[in-house]
């Protein structure tokens, strides 16, 4: 593997480890406020990445932000992968009327601009303010909304790949040996479609992380004060002029993470010879 791939793996490992270990790391809490570092840039004493608008440690907030952002990215794509992947496999393998119905549904979902769809879903899952009911916590709502948005995309990729693999003669050979459809689907077809699904899923995690940022900017992302990369940027936007690092640090974190994810997706694609035209 190339240096780039190792760097990508290294960054993803680092950020994941930091996110997982955040509670035990020797650093200030993400919501502890230190007045003296408010809007201080990186390098402030004891706070290597400085402080945010109200003096919370930027390093700590970025690490805790990674917790939210990575979790949202992975969890939402997992939903898309399981639901969309299964639907795509079934549509591509059985074809016929079922395929027409499923593909039609995906097309209609895809006809929505994805951010608008995510936005309506978020607002749909939100509890009604006047009724005073609970509803899901905002982070989970974002996961479900982004998961639903990702379903048709992953389903289409899976279907396209399933179509080509299901026509291979080894599928015929398996049927000749008396294998049932589920066995063929999961043992013969799925292992071949998996690399394509996985490489798109990696890209999808990146897209979901960015989308969470977009939702945060619209005020419907992870609920404050829990930090996510998106809502740190949203909060820092107001003080861009005198404390640009509040926007820059999480932006760089998103950039590097998405870059690493895209790179790994490409490595998988090249390695398993996933046809790009199928995308």
């Amino acid at each position: 593997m190339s240096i780039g791939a190792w760097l990508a793996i290294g960054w993803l490992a680092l950020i994941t480890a930091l996110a997982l270990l955040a509670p035990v790391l020797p650093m200030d809490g993400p919501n502890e406020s230190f007045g003296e570092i408010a809007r201080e840039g990186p390098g402030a004493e004891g706070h290597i990445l400085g402080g945010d608008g109200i003096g919370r440690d930027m390093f700590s907030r970025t690490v805790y932000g990674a917790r939210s952002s990575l979790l949202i990215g992975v969890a939402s794509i997992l939903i898309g992968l399981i639901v969309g992947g299964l639907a795509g496999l079934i549509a591509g393998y059985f074809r016929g009327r079922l395929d027409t119905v499923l593909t039609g549904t995906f097309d209609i979902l895809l006809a929505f601009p994805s951010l608008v769809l995510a936005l309506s879903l978020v607002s749909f899952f939100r509890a009604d303010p006047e009724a005073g009911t609970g509803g899901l916590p905002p982070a989970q709502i974002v996961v479900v909304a982004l998961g639903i948005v990702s379903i048709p995309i992953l389903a289409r990729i899976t279907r396209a790949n399933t179509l080509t693999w299901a026509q291979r003669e080894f599928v015929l050979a398996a049927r000749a040996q008396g294998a049932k459809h589920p066995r063929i689907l999961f043992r013969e077809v799925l292992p071949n479609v998996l690399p394509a699904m996985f490489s798109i899923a990696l890209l999808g995690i990146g897209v979901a992380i960015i989308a969470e940022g977009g939702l945060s900017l619209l005020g419907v992302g992870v609920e404050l004060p829990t930090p996510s990369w998106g809502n740190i940027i949203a909060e820092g936007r107001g003080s861009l002029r005198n404390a640009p690092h509040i926007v820059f640090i999480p932006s760089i974190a998103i950039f590097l993470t998405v870059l690493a994810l895209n790179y790994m997706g490409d490595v998988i694609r090249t390695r398993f010879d996933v046809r790009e035209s199928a995308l």
Partner: protein
Amino acid sequence: MAGSGTAHLRPPDETLLRVENLVVEFPSKRGKVNAVSNISLDVKSGETLGLVGESGCGKSTTGKAIMQLPPPTSGKVLFKGTDLTSLKSADLRRVRTSIQMIFQDPISSLNPRRRVEDIVAEGLRIWSIGDDASRDRKVDEALETVGLDPSTAKGRRPHQFSGGQCQRISIARSVVTDPNLIICDEPVSALDVSVQAQILNLLEDMKERYQLTLIFIAHDLAVVKNVSDRVAVMYLGKICEIAPPDQLFAQPAHPYTAALLDAIPVPDPTVKPHEQPTLEGDLPSPVAPPSGCRFRTRCPKAQERCAQEEPWVREVASGQFVACHFPLVGDDAPPVDQSTTMQPQAAPASA
């Protein structure tokens, strides 16, 4: 040619597989594709039936229709007396283990993501035949008989093998469940000539060792001649001629068979290839096949009658059956057509 009829079929109790009036049609954007139109075949136990014809004549479709993959549009497939077309899917799955297929493309017919061991053992695992140890033994045995070293081959994946070796793995996979009939769909067409002979010999060995019956589909007459007990020549979804290979090669009765034989290059510099008549034109579309005899648009002997009337299979010499009004061997077909059940043909195609 393009004939229908069942005159060439032998009594049902003598045959392992008997295919009667098989029809396979596919819907397509341009209309209904008549891939296989009313074909009848039979194979005796231990026999090898060769099935030859140009690409697109419906040979492979016939092979797959016998497996019910997909089931034919109409017709009967009697295997050991059971009509496969009438079976429920569970029973059909069980019967399928007795009929196996070997495919043309050795790469496409093996799952690239599975190890050879799993590929070969799959049939045993599906039917839970034996325990792990006995399955392992069977896999080893099958791999050894096809000439692969089990200890090195088992753990590898198909892409680590050559085309010929992949075909050996395919053969091992198909014999491991002790089938009665193997349908070989152009098993050597994708291989180098030097490897072809090895695989053909291997199939012969397998046939003896496992008492197999083979249906051998090929477009290469020379290959078929060496392995078959009986050869059926197909054209555009119909049967032209059925005969033992020696008879077929020595005195072809159907003009199409004759043309195919003439097209075989002769390794003799004194023979000038262009002095011999060759087939002209392309294969007509199976969406709109010619009326009457489907070969008439390219047949040197075609007459008015060939466009009107579909020829029926009849015996012109001992063991030699042909579907032609004016065969090269034997008499012309009797003028009054007994085939009152002649099926209507689609719109005639222009020659």
